[in-house]
């Protein structure tokens, strides 16, 4: 059995890192995390790394426009299925 040590400030901040980067934190939690990052170089380095990866994923957005052939195929199938 292990005793849970009191949670460190870093641990508490990093558990919420993705929520923070996704803008999902309530205002008070968001402010607390920002304050921690302002004074902790290690956590700031992790945050910057995760932000870079998320930005690279987000850069894959938007991709494929609907091909005309696909639209035509779907419309034909829908009309055959009774779309008036």
């Amino acid at each position, binding site marked *: 059995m292990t005793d849970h040590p009191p949670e460190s400030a870093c*641990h508490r901040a*990093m*558990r*919420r*890192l*993705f*929520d923070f980067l*996704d803008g*999902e934190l309530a205002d008070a939690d968001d402010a607390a995390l920002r304050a921690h990052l302002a004074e902790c170089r*290690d956590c700031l*380095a*992790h945050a910057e*790394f*995760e932000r*870079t*990866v*998320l930005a*690279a*994923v*987000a*850069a*894959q*957005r*938007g*991709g*494929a*426009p*609907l*091909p005309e052939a*696909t*639209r035509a*195929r*779907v419309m034909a*199938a*829908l009309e055959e*299925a*009774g*779309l008036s």
Partner: protein
Amino acid sequence: MYSMAESAPIPAPDFRETALPFLPDVYRFARSLTRDAADADDVVQETFLRALRSWRTFIPGSDCRRWLFTICRNVYLRSRERAERQVALDDGDDEAIAAVQAHAGWVRDGTDVLLARLDLGPAISAALDELSEPFRSAVVLVDLEDHSYEEAAAILEVPVGTVRSRLFRARRLLQERLARFAQDAGFTTSPAGGMR
């Protein structure tokens, strides 16, 4: 003489006007899920056929795009012929900590230097190809389609906490792939590995 029963029925929302405008959105979502143009065509067609068949169940005024995304994701899962593996997941908090700890390891062993040199675009695309369900759907909805955790939970029909743990695990898997690509690239470009 007019009977009371003759009052006009409430017009159902028109499928062409309400659902079809989301065809490009559903196509983009299907492309992200399937990672393949031909598979996306099949999934989109089946999604709209199924939507048309169950159009009576669509609640007028509700979010039609979200409704279509839910159908699309179910069609996609079924198209893969094997049921979604039930994956035992840590809580989202633990996944977030694991991602941070992985990064800490790369800082110690120098992988972070290689990562900084990696061309992230193609690497992310390759990593997304390899990502399995239910992780890919979570990343596609939140990171590519820009949905909130709550919206993604509604589309996936799971609790928000489940979206969060799938999403964070997915990000950890993605960054582990990136680290591996970076390490492989590092080896191939190291001077010691030169040919002849």
